[in-house]
C-alpha cells in the first residue's frame, strides 16, 4: 500500500495509479455536496444550466459541516454516508468528476462509473469531524446558501488524509463480513 500526495484538479494519471488501500494526502480545492445539493446539481444538468463549479478534475466531499465558531473557517467536517449520493454520482463522474470523499459502501453502478471514467472513491474517517476540520484552511459557500449545512462550499484543504476505498480498476478495500464465522450462514 503506497502513500501519495496529490493536488487538485485531479487527472486520469493521478487516478489510475491508485489502488484500494493506498493512503492519499490531498491538497487544493474541493467542493462539498450532500443529499439536497446533489439533487440540485442534477436538476441544473437536466435544465441544461451551468453548474456552480467546474466538474472536470473535481473532488466532491460528502459533508454537511457544523457552523464555524469564531476564529475558524469551518466547524466539524467529517464525511457523511455515501450511498445516498449513489443515484447521482455516475452522472457526475461521466462529466469529469474524478473523486468523491465519504464513508460506507457504494453501489455497483458507482463502482462501474469509477472504472469507466478513471475515478476513485476515497474514504475519510467517519466521526472524526474535529480532526478533519484542521486540514481545512478556507471555506466559502458558492451555491445554494439556503440549504444551510447542505449548501455547496468551496474548501481549501491541505494534506487531507484519505484512504482509497474503491479504485478505478475494480478494487475495494472494505472487509467482507464473515457470516459463517458469526453463525448466520
Amino acid at each position: 500500500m503506497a502513500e501519495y500526495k496529490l493536488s487538485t484538479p485531479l487527472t486520469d494519471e493521478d487516478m489510475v495509479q491508485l489502488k484500494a488501500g493506498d493512503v492519499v494526502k490531498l491538497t487544493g480545492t474541493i467542493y462539498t455536496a450532500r443529499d439536497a445539493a446533489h439533487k440540485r446539481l442534477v436538476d441544473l444538468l437536466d435544465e441544461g444550466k451551468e453548474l456552480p463549479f467546474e466538474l472536470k478534475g473535481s473532488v466532491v466531499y460528502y459533508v454537511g459541516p457544523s457552523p464555524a465558531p469564531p476564529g475558524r473557517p469551518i466547524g466539524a467536517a467529517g464525511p457523511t454516508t455515501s450511498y445516498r449520493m449513489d443515484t447521482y454520482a455516475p452522472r457526475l463522474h461521466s462529466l469529469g468528476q474524478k473523486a468523491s470523499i465519504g464513508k460506507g459502501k457504494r453501489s455497483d453502478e458507482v463502482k462501474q462509473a469509477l472504472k469507466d471514467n478513471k475515478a476513485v472513491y476515497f474514504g475519510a474517517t467517519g466521526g472524526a469531524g474535529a480532526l478533519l476540520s484542521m486540514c481545512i484552511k478556507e471555506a466559502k459557500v458558492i451555491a445554494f446558501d439556503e440549504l444551510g449545512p447542505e449548501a455547496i462550499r468551496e474548501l481549501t484543504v491541505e494534506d487531507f488524509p484519505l484512504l482509497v476505498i474503491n479504485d478505478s480498476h475494480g478494487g475495494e478495500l472494505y472487509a467482507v463480513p464473515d457470516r459463517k464465522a458469526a453463525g448466520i450462514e
Partner: protein
Amino acid sequence: MRTIKAEQVIDAVAKMCVSANRYLPEDVRKRFEECAAAEDSPAAKEVFRQIKENWELAEKSGLPLCQDTGLAVYIVEMGEDVRVEGMNIRDAIDAGTRKGYEEGFLRKSSCDPLTRKNTGDNTPSIIHMDVVPGDKLKITFMAKGGGSENMSRVTMLAPAQGWAGIKKFVIERVAEAGPNPCPPTMVGIGIGGTFEYSALLAKKSLMRKVGEASPDPEIAKLEAELMEDINKLGIGPMGLGGKTTVFDVKIEMRPCHIASLPLAVNIQCHSSRHEEVEL
C-alpha cells in the same frame, strides 16, 4: 409539590447539548482504549488512533466531535411530585435545544421529511416522557446521528423464531450495514412490547453506560453472547477489518402479545454522545 423554573430546565438542556457534543463520555473512551490495544491490524489501530486524536481535539478546540451533531433525543423521567413553572416541560426542552444548538455552533439537522426544508433550529426535539415516583426531574440527552440511525430496523418475528431468530436478524443487520454506520458501533436491541415500544426499548438501551450489563443475569448473558458473535463478522473499525465491529450490545426486554415477537435494532455510531442531568 416541588417546583422547578422553566429557565432552569432550558439552561440545563442547552448546556448538555453543547457539552455532550464536545466531550466523549469516559465509559466510551475507556472501552476504545481497550479495543485499540486488542486489535492486530494496522488499519484498525489507525482508526482508533484517529478517534482518540479527534476526542482530544474536540475537547481542546471547542469543535463538536462530529459534524453530525444529531437530532436531540431525550428520555425524561418526571417525578409525579414535581412541576415545571412558567412553561410546558416539552416547550422548555425544545427551548433548551434551540439555545444549545445555536450557542454551541452545532449543526441543525432537523428537516421536513418530504420537502427536506431545514426547520432551522434542530427542533422539534425527540422527547420520550415517563412519569416516575418522587420529586426529581431527570433528563437524559443523546445526540443521535443520521448515518447510524439509518441502519436501524424494526421487525415482527414469529414467536417460534425465538432467540435464534433474534440473533440471526441482529447479526445480519450489522453485516448489511457494514462500514456505513461508522463502526465500531453500539447495538441497542429492544425485544418485546409492541411494534413501536420495541423501538423505544432499543433506544433506551443505548442510554446505558458502556460496559454496564443488563441487571438481569440471563439477559446479560445474551448480550455477551451476541457481542462475541457479531464481532466474528470481522467488519472492524470503519469497515476496514478487525476485531471490533461493535463495542457494546445492550438488550432491553419486555413482555409482548402471545402472537408476537417484536424486535428493534438501533445502531449507534462510535461517537456515542450522551449526558444526563437531574434537577
